[in-house]
């Protein structure tokens, strides 16, 4: 092979040239160890978010207000499990196992989107999550369709196709509440009040403070900065809130004619770091539940093994 005698610096140059040229990196390509690690961190964090994110919504499946809403919510939560699977599998092409990733989650070494550490208190929260949380995820994931790692980019194409339904079902359900009784309107407003700021936090720290951002941008793992993505989300969401007749809980929110964007207030970064570092309202509960679900599923994995053994024995007997 032509690459055989290249030294590390030359390999790295080929690698970076490829990225600069907008080509994808594929699993068998040479890549710097730090690129691999950085990707594993981001992708496993992304996959964990899909999976942990099922909990706040799953909380309402049995209490959905109608059979229609229940079927929709079930289908949505099922999609999120699928998203977790796509991304875990793509991450496994980097040489890490599913078990290692799940273990890191259980040990608190791997993070997930901190927004899922907030509780879903009322039915309106389900609508707000679809509209805002999936809405924010879409803004991010659309740019990740162009991420430099091939398997991740292709997984994102698949995910993005499925996300639009998630956001629309959420908005539709809020639309019903927002045009309903006084209590229903209040419920929708209350959900927006609680989910707005955590949604903005989903994009992470300011660019200047973001530990991994610069390198990730150079490697095109990330295609847009945290602040750019956050601004895009605010710009698209404000008119949607206005249409619902709801008020975004930010007195500083104002259209800036000169910038062509909305100005908005500062995120409570103390809260952000408090939740990220394990002290949000539901952090413990989320991991305890994930562990329990995993442990409770042990018998299924054992049954699959046992069935496989039985089939093999049968085939041997027949032969």
């Amino acid at each position: 092979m032509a690459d055989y005698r290249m030294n590390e610096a030359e390999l790295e140059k080929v690698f970076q040239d490829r990225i600069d040229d907008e080509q994808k990196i594929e699993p068998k390509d040479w890549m710097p160890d730090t690129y691999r690690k950085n990707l594993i961190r981001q992708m496993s964090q992304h996959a964990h978010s899909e999976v942990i994110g099922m909990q706040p919504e799953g909380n309402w499946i049995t209490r959905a207000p109608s059979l229609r809403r229940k079927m929709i919510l079930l289908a949505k939560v099922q999609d999120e499990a699928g998203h977790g699977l796509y991304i875990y599998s793509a991450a496994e092409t980097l040489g890490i196992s599913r078990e290692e990733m799940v273990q890191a989650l259980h040990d608190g070494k791997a993070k997930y989107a901190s927004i899922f550490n907030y509780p879903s208190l009322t039915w309106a929260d389900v609508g707000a999550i679809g509209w805002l949380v999936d809405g924010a995820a879409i803004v991010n994931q659309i740019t990740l369709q162009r991420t430099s790692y091939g398997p991740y980019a292709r997984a994102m194409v698949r995910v993005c196709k499925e996300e639009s339904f998630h956001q629309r079902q959420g908005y539709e359900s809020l639309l019903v509440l927002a045009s309903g009784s006084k209590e229903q309107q209040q419920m929708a407003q209350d959900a927006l009040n609680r989910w707005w700021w955590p949604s903005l936090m989903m994009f992470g720290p300011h660019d200047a403070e973001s530990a991994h951002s610069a390198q990730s941008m150079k490697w095109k793992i990330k295609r847009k900065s945290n602040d750019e993505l956050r601004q895009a989300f605010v710009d698209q969401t404000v008119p949607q809130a206005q249409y619902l007749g709801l008020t975004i809980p930010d007195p500083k929110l104002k259209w800036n004619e000169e910038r062509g964007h909305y100005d908005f207030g500062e995120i409570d970064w103390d809260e952000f770091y408090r939740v990220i570092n394990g002290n949000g309202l539901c952090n413990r509960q989320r991991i305890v539940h994930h562990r329990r679900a995993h442990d409770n599923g042990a018998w299924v994995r054992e049954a699959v093994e046992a069935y496989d053994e039985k089939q093999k024995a049968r085939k041997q007997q027949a032969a």
Partner: protein
Amino acid sequence: MTTTSDFPLFEIFIRSNRGLDHKHVGSLHAKDYEQALEYARDCYTRRSEGVSIWVVKSSDIVASQEEDAVSFYDPMDDKPYRHASYYKLPEAVNNM
């Protein structure tokens, strides 16, 4: 006499460009994986059709049958709410 059809059959997948999925292009007989890879190169990429080739033993492929589609895919037909277009939103906010 040994004929090449005694050799196992391989399915060939080609990635035409970085970033794209490997796509099935056809099959061929070969003695082993290495040979299959070389034959695939000679047979399917003579005009630089690809940048990467996958070879998979045909016997390793498990496929669902189209005749079974009715029962196999049945649960999907009555779930229109899995599609974005199922949700009718007012024009002003329909771009999500």
